[in-house]
């Protein structure tokens, strides 16, 4: 299958999230996990979603798949609103949208054989012919670089973390989906294995014509695979821009801070004394106005009074800040 170029606007975006709000109850309090996020992912594109723990990036990923129902807002997948779908209709639609989790070992049932694990989605999707199932399972296992003959009869504990992630990727591919949400797919893996899996995801994307939402906390990892990157902080998007542009000229102070904080493997680059003071506030009681203002060196009164909306500052680069850096 040919990859659809990222720029085709003909059919509109494959995924369009509009003003999505997700909240959790916590006793009698509310966790504002995702507070009005809008984004688009074009066909064939990889959108990276970065942010620190607790910023709502995983919740957003799950809400896209309706694994966590949003409180309000819409998720249009190929023009269909997933938030309005229920039961069988939603299940059918989910065959086109898959998810890969962070912990590859925990996301495989330890008591089932790899062949059965990878075939499971086919059974749920109603592929009745065992021969047909076997053929597809063997195809995807070979595609992710495993030898089906050696693998299908074995149990997850016989495999390393990297191999388990290959199995998870095979399982996600088995229904030939169009869209995959990758939630921290390499953060549990060692450096040498991480590179293998990132390369594999890129290969699979090209080979199966996939569109990806790639969620991670590591900016360098996100840059390696993403066409555009969205930066999230405390439930809201700070900035969305083409990868190169975001890394070369971050417009949001939080993006700049994240970039500065990355340790560079070069002893000649002295680590900058951390400019970030403090820690992210609680999503139970997020700050008024701009949510980053409590840690922002540029914050003033306007930032506490008025919530900044995402707006385009440079073509293609959207930022939610009253005092952007560009």
């Amino acid at each position: 299958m040919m990859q659809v170029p990222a720029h085709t606007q003909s059919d509109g975006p494959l995924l369009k999230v509009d003003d999505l709000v997700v909240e959790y109850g916590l006793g009698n309090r509310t966790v504002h996990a995702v507070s009005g996020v809008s984004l688009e992912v074009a066909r064939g594109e990889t959108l990276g979603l970065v942010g620190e723990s607790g910023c709502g990036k995983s919740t957003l990923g799950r809400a896209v798949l309706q694994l966590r129902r949003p409180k309000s807002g819409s998720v249009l997948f190929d023009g269909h609103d997933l938030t309005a779908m229920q039961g069988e209709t939603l299940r059918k639609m989910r065959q086109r949208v898959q998810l890969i989790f962070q912990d590859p070992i925990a996301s495989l049932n330890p008591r089932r054989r790899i062949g059965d694990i990878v075939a499971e989605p086919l059974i749920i999707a109603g592929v009745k012919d065992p021969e047909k199932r076997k053929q597809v399972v063997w195809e995807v296992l070979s595609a992710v670089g495993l030898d089906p003959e050696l693998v299908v009869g074995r149990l997850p504990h016989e495999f390393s973390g990297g191999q388990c992630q290959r199995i998870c990727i095979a399982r996600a591919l088995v229904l030939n989906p169009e869209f995959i949400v990758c939630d921290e797919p390499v953060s549990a893996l060692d450096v040498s294995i991480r590179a293998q899996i990132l390369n594999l995801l890129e290969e699979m994307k090209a080979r199966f014509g996939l569109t990806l939402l790639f969620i991670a906390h590591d900016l360098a990892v996100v840059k390696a695979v993403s066409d555009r990157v969205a930066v999230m902080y405390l439930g809201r998007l700070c900035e969305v821009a083409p990868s190169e542009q975001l890394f070369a000229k971050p417009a949001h102070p939080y993006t700049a801070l994240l970039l500065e904080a990355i340790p560079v493997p070069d002893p000649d680059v002295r680590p900058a004394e951390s400019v970030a003071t403090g820690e992210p506030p609680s999503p139970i009681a997020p700050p008024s106005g701009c949510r980053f203002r409590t840690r922002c060196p540029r914050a003033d009164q306007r930032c506490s009074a008025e919530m900044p909306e995402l707006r385009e500052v440079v073509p293609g680069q959207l930022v939610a800040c009253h005092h952007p850096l560009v």
Partner: protein
Amino acid sequence: MSGALLSIQDVAVELPTPRGNLRAVDRVNLTLEAGRTLGVVGESGCGKTMLSRAILQLLPKKARLSGRVMFAGQDLARLEPESLRKLRGRDLAVVFQDPMTSLNPVLTIGTQLMETIQEHLELDAAAAKKRSIELLTAVGIPAPEQRLTQYPHQCSGGMRQRIAIAIALSCEPKLLIADEPTTALDVTIQAQILDLLAREQRRRHMAMILITHDLGVVAGRADEVAVMYAGRVVERAPTPALFKRMHMPYTEALLAAIPKLETAPHTPLPAISGRPPDPTRPVPGCSFAPRCRYAAGRCHQAKPDLSAAETAGHFYACFHPIRMAEGIGA
């Protein structure tokens, strides 16, 4: 020898497992002077944590330790349990990866800090409390007096790691072992914690072993780096020398496999094929040989010893070292 605070000589750790003996640490030699930082880098299972446990004499019961761990002139393996207990926490402190599990969830922060202080230093409760507050202030915890009455679950991950560091620093240790101190933390918090460790180290003239899987973390923070693979130190050098001219193909491959911010999106990463060897099934030759693109005949038959490179203090364990200056090496 006289200058070294810590000297590890031919240390090996073997663990009996149902599948046979696992050689977690294999004949490691390292020295560290007061006030210096040694970075120990490697992937999971390379033995870096077992090495730190060997130094602390905190190995699992069934583990067999050989070699000597000389700390301030004493062989730690020969110390009586009582003397060892006095040493740990006072002269020899440790910060672990996960601050949630290293702090006791049912004791207040204050109790945990003051317990350590009163155990090792002859201070009364009031003086111990005063010192606790000073320590929490030093590690950047706002409203330290209130924190003393709180429990670990009331603090964020970054705060908990600051508290763990405060406890580790409480008795002015001569050596601090930081085992993946920032791996469980976010990147902006990681920078704060690494800065804190560096600042306190300078202030106290403390030696530090910084154990990490991240070459980026040691690059800016360690004086010397030891790279471990399959239980052995495969390359060791002063940090600038290592990054300028690494000789061990594994070190080079590890650095190359890290995604870099300067690289354009969708550039394939130079991944290392395969995976580390099964530590219960040691290979006869160089442990990295099955994954190494420079490996040839000899690499599969014999284990290369550490040899000296052209820069003082730089050692590598490889038959086919890369980036050698003319006339040196095999």
